[in-house]
């Protein structure tokens, strides 16, 4: 027990790389995967525009794209790039792949009838989607090198933010289907906090609060009197 307490009391032992090294890993990944990074960003822009124009998008399409991004994140970012410096990355890859499987499952079952957008939480979800799109560029503008930030849907935090946004936007959202993303989000937020990447850690916290508020919003709306 004392060994575990020592470990928890010494965050330095929980991380085996520095922020500089993490950014170098991201930079190498972004360079190697720039096509996927660009395609993911374009898909995020397309979804945001569709939602801004009031369209209701078939959930199956969005969830298939999200699932593909989670497979990519686990199979390429975690297993190939992050694993160079982080012994826990293969386990994170397993989590990401599990998330991809669950989202695929939803896409081909209940998601075939569900729609994205037009929910009580549409504004919040859309805001998070835009935040996921702009987060990388915003960090770059704040001083992080352009090649060393995570872009939409291809880094752990940006894909987590996008997944949270889609959950908020989905009617009959499959909350438990996002359990791996939640666990990975906690790990990513903790890592970011220890690396001094406060913006990422704070964004995760805000997303968690937003997600937690969704059921409350829905309950409150259901109690409102309807017009006669």
């Amino acid at each position, binding site marked *: 027990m*004392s*060994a575990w307490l*020592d470990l928890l009391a*010494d965050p*330095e*032992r929980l*991380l*085996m*790389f*520095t922020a*500089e*090294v993490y950014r*170098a*890993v991201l*930079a*190498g990944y972004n360079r190697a995967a720039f096509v996927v990074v660009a395609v993911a960003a374009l898909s995020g822009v397309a979804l945001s525009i569709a939602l801004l124009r009031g369209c209701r998008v078939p959930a199956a399409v969005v969830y298939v794209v999200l699932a593909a991004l989670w497979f990519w994140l686990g199979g390429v970012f975690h297993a190939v*790039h992050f694993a*160079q*410096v*982080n*012994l826990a990355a293969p386990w994170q890859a397993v989590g990401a792949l599990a998330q991809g499987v669950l989202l695929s499952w939803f896409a081909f079952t209940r998601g075939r009838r569900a729609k994205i957008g037009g929910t009580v939480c549409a504004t919040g979800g859309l805001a998070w989607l835009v935040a996921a799109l702009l987060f990388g560029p915003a960090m770059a503008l704040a001083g992080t090198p352009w090649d060393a930030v995570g872009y939409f849907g291809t880094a752990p935090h940006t894909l987590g933010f996008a997944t949270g946004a889609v959950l908020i936007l989905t009617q009959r959202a499959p909350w438990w289907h996002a359990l791996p993303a939640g666990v990975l989000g906690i790990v990513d937020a903790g890592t970011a906090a220890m690396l001094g990447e406060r913006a990422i850690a704070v964004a995760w916290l805000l997303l968690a609060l937003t997600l937690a508020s969704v059921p409350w919003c829905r309950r409150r709306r259901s109690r409102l009197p309807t017009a006669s």
Partner: protein
Amino acid sequence: MKCVTEPHAGITRRGLMRLAGSAMLAGVAPRSWARAPALLQRTVPSSGESIPSLGMGTWITFNVGNSMPLRLQRLDVMRAFLELGGGMIDSSPMYGSAQDVIGFCLGRLEAPSAMLSATKVWTRGRDDGIAQMERSMRRWGVDTIDVMQVHNLVDWRTHLDTLADWKAAGRIRYVGITTSHGMRHDAFEDIMRSRHLDFVQFTYNVLDRRAEARLLPLAADRGIGVIVNRPFQGGRLFDKLAHRPLPDFAGEIDCETWAAFFLKFVISHPAVTCAIPATSRVDHMGENMRAGVGRQPDAPLRRRMVDYVSTL
């Protein structure tokens, strides 16, 4: 340490360095080597071999993955370390890409004969342990390792048997066990009493002196070399003290920086064989290595060092 990835086939790094040593005597050695003052040497109790009292750790600092700019920075750090007379380079399979980066650096440097390779086995089971140690040798680019240690006592009974066989076969020169952060000292002490070890590695510094009570005296009694990790308490000694002035008596031991102050405290303990501070900066490496030259504190002065730090 014999190399398998030498620039000239059939010549080991050690052999190259013997040639370099001859060249130095002939006055044609690199000037920086020739200028480097002699570093304090310590004797490995089990063999009588003399080794530099300062080594280099690689936890976090050498885990830079495939990033070429960061690898080249670490190459500069290792070059400075070797040119300044450093000895042991310590790593572990637990340190991510650190062993690959060491291999990358060694492949581009002529390592002095004083260099000792030290790594660890950190897995369970005999076969997995052997596979991991062989993988470590490939990552370093060597076919023997000088010091092989059981990392954090993981499956130590199994691995110590394997290491005894490997030592007898000449695949390693020294056998050791490690711990850090003051953890599991009771079990550590039991192993030191019951098994034949060449080295033990644990945490010791001016703030964390738990090893003084039992481990250091026992190592001296049993003739076991001591490798000290975390001599800066993971950098916290600097956080706590760097903004404070050095004590007046620092001049008595040729101390100009806090790094030298902390390291001199460690390597001046009679039972300590070497300390392995880690850094990713060439200037810090230079400061660290200065600790191994000049006067070292005796017992009364070491007491004053502890007293001074405890008052801050």
